[in-house]
């Protein structure tokens, strides 16, 4: 459960986020909007990389303000990046272990947890392959595996669907849909691929100029005329 309350972020004079308020309870929520709308800014606030000048954000009832950046992973905030951040010199298993080192394991054996995470994303056979020898899609899956270990509460994915082949896209959708069942975490999905959003997200938040212009069940939001004007595009008369 994500609660955003009157969140404002300033970059000099530019309003990255402008008094944004939203309540996001769904297991998989989409976050869309044109470039510069504030999507990445919002997840950066959640990650702790950017400090809001006003307002607050809570996850599962806990205000994130008091949690230092490096402790958010342990609290349960995880993230995959647009520019993947897999460590080239570590194997896939070690990449996952690197995050597991810093999050609660509830006494379970580490090797089992790592294996489970890698199996979940379909990389069970590639556990000992070095990061540099994994292809782009596999690296993305490693990032997702990393984010599912150690009781995560929220996994934010920043454009995971970019540049994928058809079968990879299908696999990604499956993974996203199964995350909540696998580890209990909520997913916040940022992407420009509207089909991906429709296929995986029960609800979607649309941002424009730093505020929310629509929130609700995904099909309704995508049909919303305001959203169409701002983001999806409107058919020209007589085209």
């Amino acid at each position, binding site marked *: 459960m994500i609660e955003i309350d009157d969140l404002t972020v300033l970059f000099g004079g530019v309003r990255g986020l402008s008094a944004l308020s939203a309540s996001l309870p769904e297991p998989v929520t989409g976050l869309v909007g044109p470039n510069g709308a504030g999507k990445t800014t919002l997840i950066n606030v959640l990650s702790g990389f950017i400090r809001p000048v006003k307002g607050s954000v809570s996850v599962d009832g806990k205000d994130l303000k008091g949690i230092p*950046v490096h402790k958010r*992973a342990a609290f349960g905030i995880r993230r995959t990046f647009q520019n993947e951040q897999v460590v*080239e010199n*570590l194997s896939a298993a070690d990449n996952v272990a690197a995050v597991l080192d*810093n999050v609660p394991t509830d006494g379970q054996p580490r090797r089992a947890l790592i294996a489970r995470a890698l199996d979940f994303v379909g990389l069970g056979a590639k556990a000992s392959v070095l990061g540099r020898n994994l292809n782009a899609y596999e690296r993305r899956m490693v990032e997702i595996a*990393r984010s599912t270990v150690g009781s995560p509460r929220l996994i934010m994915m920043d454009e995971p669907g970019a540049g994928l082949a058809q079968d990879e896209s299908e696999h990604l959708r499956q993974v996203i849909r199964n995350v909540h069942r696998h580890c209990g975490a909520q997913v916040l999905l940022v992407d420009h691929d509207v089909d991906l959003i429709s296929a995986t997200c029960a609800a979607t938040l649309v941002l424009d100029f730093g505020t929310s212009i629509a929130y609700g069940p995904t099909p309704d939001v995508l049909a919303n005329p305001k959203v169409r004007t701002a983001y999806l595009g409107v058919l020209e008369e007589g085209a």
Partner: protein
Amino acid sequence: MTDRSLEGVSLVASSRLPLREIAVGAGALAVIYLLPSFLSDYWLRVLISVAALVVASLSVSLLFAQLGMVSLAQFGLLGVGGWFALRISHGLGAPFELALVTGGAAAALVGLVVGLPALRMRGLYLAIITLMMAGAIQVLISAFGFPDGGTGILGKSTGARVMMARPFLAQSDPAYFRYAVVIAAFCYLLVLAHLRGRPGRAWAMIRRGEVCALAGGVHIVAYKVWAFALAGFLAGIAGGLLAGGVGQLDGSAFPASQSIMLFALTIVGGAYSWFGPIIAGLMLRAFPALLNEFHVDGNIATVVFGVGLLHALMTAPQGIARQLADAFWAARNFFKGNGRNAA
């Protein structure tokens, strides 16, 4: 420095045991055991110093290869470690091992206290502060000298200078040489244990990027501190080894330029390879000794090393070790037959 520069040989191995490396290591150890009988006293002493400097170079390469951190103070910290090892050994009559470890701990602490402000800043500031640290240590050491059996805080003897007591098992030069090699091997294993465990993974994440590390829950400053402390500890151990080998340390032998040379040669030898520090140790001690034999000015060595570092930075950041490894693999593939592709 980003992950882009870290290609090729890495100290971080995969999760399976490096059996081949262990076999090679065991073979090398056997050779080293037999070595002293073939060497003159002078060269044996040189190699003892080499062993100590290998550990010092290992400390430099640990920081540089794992975290891209440039420390220009490691030789100075070697001096600090040597000072404490000598003081404990002379003052308390402590066994060599205890003196060695104390020296290591002292150097780690000194390094940390001084380096801490810079650990939170850009890497350039660490290079600057460690250079200044080396300068400050130079001033202190040349002013105070090294303990040599006297009483009082500085331990300076008014009468005859006392040599450092060697370990119980290693009184003679050949025995001490083997002892030093064993200690060096321990240091390597210590580093290896770090690399395969939590610290190694955290360091790799930090090197990948601050963002990657923070998002993964790594406390960046804490792990940098850990690395820096470990590097200080290794430098201190090297100091104790050197003190035990030579018997006493010379207060004028710790100019800041030595720390720079240590760094330079570690890069030239190959910071990203386990073999690099060995090459660096040889170059730091054996090369000048060789020049000495041929009555060539030691300053030539400085110039050569400077050129070597410059060349390494411009062309082969992985150093001689990598070039040797490449040559080795090329030769191996050549002998295996022309049908195979190069590694």
